[in-house]
């Protein structure tokens, strides 16, 4: 049986070391914790960089599971769409961002990695994922001009 797979964004605000009094990502955090909680006790984290690994591992620990590199009960993929959706987005507004994210929403195959880089998208680990249409999508929004998805393929 294939272990379940979850997708979360590499949002640093999810880390305990960046906690605020009023959680700016409360809804996203709740969705992430629920999704990661469905991956079982041994979770392998796939992320494109060190900060994504930390965010993924932080979520795994937050649900009481353990990060492993093999014999996993579930896989946590860390990545997200563009970070250029609005003028206040980290990478400012790029008019191509919305269409780029819409394409990802349809399919993670055949991602234009050059465009992804220009749009500050973290897509390196998304390429192998099935379509979002086949997942239980828990979160799909761009609250800070960054496109986030939380989804579980079970």
């Amino acid at each position, binding site marked *: 049986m294939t272990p379940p797979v979850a997708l979360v964004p590499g949002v640093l605000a999810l880390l305990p070391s*960046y906690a605020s009094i*009023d*959680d*700016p990502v409360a809804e996203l955090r709740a969705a992430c914790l629920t999704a990661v909680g469905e991956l079982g006790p041994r979770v392998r984290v796939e992320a494109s960089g060190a900060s994504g690994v930390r965010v993924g591992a932080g979520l795994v620990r937050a649900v009481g599971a353990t990060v492993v590199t093999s014999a996993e009960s579930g896989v946590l993929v860390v990545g997200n769409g563009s970070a250029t959706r609005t003028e206040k*987005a980290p990478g400012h507004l790029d008019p191509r961002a919305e269409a780029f994210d819409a394409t990802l929403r349809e399919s993670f195959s055949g991602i234009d990695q050059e465009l992804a880089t220009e749009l500050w998208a973290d897509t390196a680990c998304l390429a192998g994922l099935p379509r979002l249409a086949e997942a239980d999508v828990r979160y799909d929004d761009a609250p*800070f001009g960054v496109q986030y998805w939380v989804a579980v393929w079970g």
Partner: protein
Amino acid sequence: MRLGRQEFGDDDALMMAIVNRTPDSFFDKGATWGEDAAFARVAEVVGQGAEIVDIGGIKAAPGVEISAAEEKARVVDFVAGVREQWPDVVISVDTWRAEVGDAVCAAGADVLNDAWGGADPELVDVAAAHDAAIICTHTGGVTPRTRPYRIEYDDVVAAATNDTVAYAERALAAGVARESIVIDPAHDFGKNTFHSLEVTRRIDEMVATGWPVLVSLSNKDFVGETLGLDVGERLVGTLAATSVCALAGARIYRVHQVVETRQTVDMVWSIAGRRPPLRAIRGLQ
């Protein structure tokens, strides 16, 4: 720390808002002498988030002698009224007289703020009897309501620390709960401006005693003399001194301006790593 009916965590910084029942205090010049105005002041500062109101019936500076009976007439019923309208607010009363302390505690006060450093030795017994908190201040042994005149210290901070800790231990021995004892160097009380500046600079030495430290800096003369500013112009200087005390970890701030002081202390508390930012997302999305 426990102040009467309220407990506070080790990382809480508290605002103690001044409410004068006097016709002649230096900052507000009698603005809350009328009872309605005084209740309005309490409503205002509680609305601004002050955890404590400090009610005083006698101005600190010299002036017409106020008997214990007159002091009680000014504060006791008012304390009862505040307690009735605001059951959760911590009520402190600024008095050095045991007789007055007993009456206000019976009326619902939580804290006896002895601004004159134990001038009445029975005040600690009153605090113990009512399970009230006590603020132990340093005045260098001066008589209540007198100005400092040619007072010098070998080491003003050592004197303030030793005297307030001795007072705290006396309160403890009298039966006041350990978690209900606070020390206060009492800026400008028995101190010239140089003394108050030095106490501010070295306030960490008082924090290091382990007793929670209260500072009363608000619009005082050491700020005015340092900057050459009159009473109504000392907010910025007050907040600068507040920042220094907050960084060192002073826990209670006796203030006229609650909102500005709260912002200052919150900011410094976060710089010190004792309080998370309210809502940080920039760069963390």
